[in-house]
């Protein structure tokens, strides 16, 4: 205190020289951080010309106290407006704190975490503190950055939740994620197994021949019931052809009547053709 009183005249002189027109300023600017449990906090002097180079830390239970003497052209005087403004650097959001000013211009304000709006508590960068002093009349106002405040949050105490208010604007793009297309195994493997399956046909034929299979009764059967045998065997082949057409191009409603017709032919010709086969069996030829 004594020290600041001793330099006050010097400061007065300086400001008087620097600003010839009537203007607002302050001296004896002091900030202190007082911890709740007592103990010596940080104490710094501030002035309007050079802001403090290092940010002031403010713990969640600490109180930041700012005291200064507002002066109009070096004379202690009460200004109408004496604010400490805290600014969040990213959004530019500002919170003003009016100082309690006496007639003599002595002004003081204390700020703790609970006085800060929730948006400022969530700030990632230090808050910029500036002093705004102005009043009616012709005296020029003062708007000077003085120091930075770094908010120290207690990790054990969660910050009050802040939800951004809804604002109309563009939203994030959404692109639908499609399900993956079904995949086939490598073609070589498919071809190998298809060949393996097809190979069973010759194997079957060869083993039949080996067991003595033949079509020696064909001429006999055709001779006994030529029409029935040709149509019966033909209808079995035709039925497979209908199934092939169903697979390639026909729909069910095209297929069903044709199946009915072919089936009828099979039944009618089959009774005679199979009757002939039976007669051969009864004759002991099979």
């Amino acid at each position: 205190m004594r020290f600041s009183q001793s330099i006050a005249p010097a400061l007065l002189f300086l400001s008087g020289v620097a600003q010839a027109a009537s203007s607002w300023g302050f001296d004896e600017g002091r900030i202190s951080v007082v911890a709740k449990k007592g103990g010596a906090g940080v104490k710094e002097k501030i002035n309007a010309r050079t802001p403090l180079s290092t940010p002031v830390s403010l713990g969640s239970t600490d109180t930041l106290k700012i005291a200064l003497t507002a002066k109009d052209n070096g004379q202690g005087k009460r200004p109408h407006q004496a604010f400490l403004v805290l600014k969040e650097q990213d959004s530019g959001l500002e919170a003003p704190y009016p100082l309690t000013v006496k007639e003599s211009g002595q002004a003081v304000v204390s700020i703790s975490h609970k006085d800060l709006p929730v948006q400022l508590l969530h700030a990632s960068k230090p808050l910029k503190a500036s002093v705004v002093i102005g009043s009616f009349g012709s005296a020029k106002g003062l708007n000077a950055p003085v120091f930075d405040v770094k908010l120290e949050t207690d990790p054990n105490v969660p910050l009050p939740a802040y939800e951004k208010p809804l604002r109309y604007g563009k939203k994030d793009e959404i692109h639908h994620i499609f399900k993956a297309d079904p995949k086939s195994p490598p073609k070589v493997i498919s071809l190998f197994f298809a060949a393996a399956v097809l190979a069973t046909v010759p194997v079957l034929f060869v083993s039949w021949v080996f067991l003595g299979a033949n079509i020696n009764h064909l001429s006999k059967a055709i001779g006994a019931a030529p029409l029935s045998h040709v149509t019966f065997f033909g209808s079995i082949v035709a039925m497979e052809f209908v199934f092939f057409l169903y697979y390639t191009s026909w729909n069910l409603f095209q297929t069903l009547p044709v199946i009915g017709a072919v089936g009828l032919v099979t039944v009618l010709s089959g009774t005679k053709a199979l009757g002939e086969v039976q007669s051969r069996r009864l004759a002991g030829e099979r």
Partner: protein
Amino acid sequence: MMRSPLLSFFAFLFAALCVSAVSTTGNRVLAILDDVAEKAIYSKFLGDLEGRGFQLTFETPKSESLALFKLGERVYDHVIFFPTKTKGLGPNLTPNILVQFLNANGNILQTLSSGVSTPNSLVSFLSEVGIELPVDRTGLVVDHFSYDTSSAADSHDVLLLPPPAPIRSDIKNLFSAGAAKDQVLAFPRGVGAVLGSSENLTPILRAPRTAYSYNPKEQSEVVDDLFAAGQQLSLVSAFQALNSARLVLLGSAELLQDKWFDADVTKPDGTTHKTFNREFAKRLSAWAFQELGVLRVNWIEHRLNEVGGSNETNPGIYRIKNDVKYTISLSEYAYDKWSAFSVPKNDVLQLEFSMLSPFHRLPLKFDESHSSPEASAYSVSFKLPDQHGIFNFKVNYKRPLLSNMEEKNTVSVRHMAHDEWPRSFVISGAWPWIAGIGATVTGWIAFCALWMYSAPPADYKKESKKTQ
């Protein structure tokens, strides 16, 4: 040429209609003043309104005949409230009636003045939409850093502000576009308001960082209890309801007075500037009365965008994974004509394809081939999601200072029909199975032939005879 007189008569009628229909919602304006004679001090502003085709009616709050509705219909399309000294506004202008007026698509331009305390009815109405006024219904905004030294050298209550730029980079510049560089807006003896967090509220003009509001009666010596300061203080605020009805709160009625139109003001640094007030008043009233920032959807079209696909416009049904194209044509109104709407620079028009929640949200691009000077088309092509159901093509374009637009076109999206899948022979994994069917068919036919036509082998015959 028998028709030509008739045609010209219709053309004349049409022209007459065009001249009278200035706003998109109507031209009947009710101005409420303390004393009808007061309108003389606003003569330029009111003259500008009449010049744009509005029909003005002047009433005092005490008037018996004053009614916003008649037989359930709006009698006026727009209302201007000039500051009135009466504490209440009577039974014809209760907050409830004003809310009804907004609900019925009526627009309100309300002005405040720091010398006159705001009627209770209007304070309650404003709090209904989320605008808060100073507690004692009056306040004065001062700024010791930017004021008019020629008219308020001592009191600092004539604020000089740059013409208001949009509050966000993605908002259309409706109010300061085209302003000369050295023009300033004079905001004399106004009241600042604090806006709630509603998304329908937009500050058109914010107070400068160093300005603050105080009560001149109680806080003339020192500001102990601050209502609001800096950018938190909204000097001109806009509220747009979901039905696009608009409410503008202008903190300073004096801004509209003749003496501030094209006046000369001096900044504290000694430079003299012309005021932007006349143009600002024109644009502000035009916005409030639906002459600016009004959007119209001309047509919407969606169709299949596949080679060889159906060319039907707006079909009711699509299949999953279809490629489709969506196009929307928009126009924007400005004073007397519809013109092509261009999306503001940092903004995007987005299409959502949604069932309950959006599956796609895609930007719509300007489509020159379907656009004209009167309408601009925006389109996007995309693949429908692989999910069947009832979907909406939805364009939900709600932006500050533009009328709300929410367009929904419902379509069914069906799943794949059985014959729309790739055939099994093109799927390599199916080849062994197809080969299996071929083997079975061959085997079956061969077996039938064998069963019917095979003669018993010679040695088998002997054996069977033996057993018999």
